[in-house]
């Protein structure tokens, strides 16, 4: 029953699989190879970002204390065994930049987007494979530029991942404002070019290359989420690009877009009338959609994995799609909530508060739908499922504090404190990262044809889950105590409660332990690649198209003929079906479906010729699910 059904239609393919090592693994145009290239590169950037966070946690917990090991490993950053203040600022900037753009954005869109979109759409590859390859290599160039900035005079950029002027615009402001900041801006510009090339590909592929029978409302939620995330990227990154161009001109050609007549290092700046708020608007017009670029794919991955491992259709599929669209739209009109304390008309901030609170509605809808899917499911706690459920948990925790911060009255108190660090790290660093882990555990067999070790995966989950809460939850308390974020040293501030430092020590230790726990994951990946159990095509008894291809899928994914889709991607535990899952490629006359609008369809003896005729058929036969369910049900 679960055998893939393929179109009898005419698709003659010239599948020229490249044979040389270079064309096959390095300059490959195969979306699966490019996905793995993205995942490995982004993963490395993530590891570097993690080490940077460790370096920052040292002086925060033990201010002024000498740490000879760290100083030996990173001699350029330490002085007398202590992390230098300017190095701290550079680490903070680079940690945020690497994690948000070069790790999460790249691994979700470049990694999972490349892996899943063509496979789950039943396509052979992306719409423009060459542009796809180019997108990866341009991304790699941006990574190199960004990392190179660590080694130039003055060190890496130090104006924060938001690169606010004047720190980012005046070359003499701090050491990192010199060459480091220039490289940061160039790297970001190159990164944006790569993202746009990728985004054009993902959107075109979803709109134009879906296989026969796969209407938009039959797509797995992963594809929907990646699709909307790609649209967000396409529409928001150009705003940052524009802002970066103006910033480069301010830095190097004497313009006054963001700069005005200020005194820097005792010198008067010969500029006039510029306004740093202009940058903040341009930056956050990207910056807020960007966080949804990082959370939407994690939502899609969680939806897919929760449905699969609860052995239940996703609860409220259509509403899930509409919520993704609503979140995508709203994400463009909430950016002002990052600027409540930058000086904003009170009516404008009220408007941004309203839109910010409204975005909680589709987010809550999704959360309830995940809970609805889990409710009374036959839960299978694979590592992927644990991370997906962990995603829901942390998304709720981090989302709730977002509602706090969406209100200017509270935000003005908390904005520059650790409360904000807690909020966005529980959403981005935890929820999104759990989405990444869930996705890797789930699709590893498809990528590499090997199973990952489940016990190690569970150990990894529990250490990470508890560790992340241990790191980030206490930061809320620090925020309430008034501990400012971004500061290198504030141990001696008189107004802080004495136990604030104790909490900092606890957080740092938790960060070291949780970070080290990721070695279990790396070990599991490496071990499984070589010695993991061979994976069958569909180890998770899943319904979506990628599981109907071999593990790993061959070049061109589908052999001679493309798959044909007869149903949605969530036919789990359909009453009357012979198994608790029905792949999308199984015709309706063989198995019933639970697809919305087709409820009650049960197997009937319809001649397959008629079904195939319908396959190429008219609108009337297809528009409402052909009335099959209703006719049968009544």
């Amino acid at each position: 029953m679960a055998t893939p059904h393929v179109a009898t239609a005419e698709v003659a393919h010239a599948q020229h699989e490249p044979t040389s090592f270079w064309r096959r693994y390095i300059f490959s145009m195969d979306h699966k190879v490019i996905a793995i290239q993205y995942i490995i590169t982004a993963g490395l950037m993530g590891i570097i970002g993690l080490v940077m966070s460790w370096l920052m946690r040292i002086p925060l917990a033990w201010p002024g204390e000498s740490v000879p090991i760290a100083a030996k490993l990173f001699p350029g950053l330490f002085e007398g065994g202590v992390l230098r203040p300017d190095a701290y600022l550079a680490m903070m900037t680079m940690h945020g930049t690497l994690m948000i753009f070069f790790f999460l954005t790249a691994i979700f869109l470049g990694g999972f987007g490349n892996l899943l979109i063509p496979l789950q759409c039943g396509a052979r590859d992306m719409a423009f494979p060459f542009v796809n390859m180019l997108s990866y290599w341009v991304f790699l160039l941006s990574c190199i530029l960004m990392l190179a900035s660590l080694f130039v005079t003055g060190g890496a950029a130090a104006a924060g991942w938001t690169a606010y002027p004047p720190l980012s615009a005046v070359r003499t402001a701090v050491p990192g404002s010199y060459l480091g900041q220039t490289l940061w801006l160039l790297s970001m510009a190159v990164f944006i070019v790569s993202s746009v090339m990728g985004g054009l590909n993902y959107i075109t592929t979803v709109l134009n290359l879906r296989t026969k029978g796969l209407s938009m409302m039959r797509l797995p939620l992963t594809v929907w989420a990646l699709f909307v995330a790609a649209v967000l990227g396409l529409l928001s990154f150009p705003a940052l690009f524009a802002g970066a161009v103006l910033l480069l001109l301010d830095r190097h050609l004497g313009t006054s877009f963001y700069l005005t007549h200020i005194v820097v290092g005792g010198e008067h700046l010969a500029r006039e009338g510029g306004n740093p708020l202009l940058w903040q608007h341009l930056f956050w017009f990207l910056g807020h959609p960007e966080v949804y670029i990082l959370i939407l794919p994690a939502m899609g991955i969680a939806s897919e994995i929760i449905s699969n491992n609860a052995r239940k259709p996703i609860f409220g599929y259509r509403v899930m799609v509409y919520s993704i669209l609503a979140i995508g739209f709203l994400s463009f009109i909430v950016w002002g909530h990052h600027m409540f304390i930058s000086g904003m008309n009170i009516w404008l901030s009220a408007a941004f508060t309203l839109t910010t609170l409204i975005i909680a509605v589709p987010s809550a809808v999704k959360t309830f739908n995940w809970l609805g899917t889990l409710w009374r499911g036959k839960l299978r706690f694979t590592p992927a499922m644990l991370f997906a459920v962990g995603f829901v948990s942390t998304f709720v925790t981090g989302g709730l504090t977002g509602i706090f911060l969406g209100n200017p009255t509270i935000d003005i108190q908390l904005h520059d404190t650790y409360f904000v660090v807690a909020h966005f790290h529980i959403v981005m660093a935890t929820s999104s990262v759990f989405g990444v882990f869930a996705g890797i555990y789930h699709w590893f067999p498809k990528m590499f044809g090997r199973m990952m070790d489940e016990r190690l995966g569970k150990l990894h989950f529990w250490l990470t889950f508890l560790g992340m809460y241990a790191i980030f939850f206490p930061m809320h308390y620090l925020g309430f105590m008034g501990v400012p974020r971004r500061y290198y040293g504030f141990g001696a501030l008189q107004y802080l409660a004495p136990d604030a430092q104790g909490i900092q020590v606890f957080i740092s230790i938790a960060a070291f332990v949780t970070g080290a726990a990721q070695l279990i994951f790396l070990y599991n990946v490496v071990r499984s690649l070589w010695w993991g159990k061979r994976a069958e095509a569909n180890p998770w008894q899943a319904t979506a198209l990628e599981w109907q291809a071999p593990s790993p899928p061959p070049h061109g994914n589908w052999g001679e003929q493309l798959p044909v889709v007869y149903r949605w991607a969530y036919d789990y535990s359909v009453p009357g079906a012979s198994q608790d899952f029905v792949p999308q490629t199984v015709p309706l006359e063989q198995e019933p479906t639970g697809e919305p609008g087709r409820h009650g369809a049960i197997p009937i003896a319809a001649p397959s010729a008629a079904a195939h005729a319908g396959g190429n058929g008219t609108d009337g036969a297809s528009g409402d699910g052909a009335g099959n369910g209703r006719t049968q049900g009544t």
Partner: protein
Amino acid sequence: MPVTGTVPTKSWGGIVRGNIPGGDGAPIGGGGPLMPTGQLFVWLLIAGVTMFFAALSSAAIVRIGVDGRSLSLPGIVWANTLVLLASSGVLGILQWRVRRQRELDRRGQLLLWATLLLGVGFLGGQLAAWAELARRGVFLPSFPAASFFYVLTAAHGLHLLGGLLALALLIAVRKRLLVFRRRLGPVALYWHFLTLVWLGLLGILQWR
């Protein structure tokens, strides 16, 4: 008889088709693509480029407005605008001819070259406008309206350079009629879009 096992062809956005790697995708019955892949690509590109110019021009409106000083535009930009409009018009006539005649005759080729040359002429004219400003002593950092004149014309010019490259590639395939006809639409779409963008930018630079 109840009908089951049908494949929808036209539910919402329900375009169904197969594809071949790297190609435009061969429909395998049922529906067709949303639009030709090249055309879709250019529409998406237009969306991104629109956002880029929207961001730049919003910044211009705010920054120039706060500053209050205005720039009297070099006279040549009006001539340049006519040249660009003419290039778009010529390309439009070419599209119309190709649609009607289904071939690219000698006159059609002339129109293609004319579009390209008018485009080059526009860019040359824009450089002349820069030179005129420089003669007046107005440079990039002088004041916001001047800064934005340079930035917006440069940004538009660079995008137009891309359009010129696309036109040149179109000229290169003019003998292969099928390929030419498939590419003409997307290239022309981008070209007309850049004309529209220029009219918008001109409006901002003149009246802000």
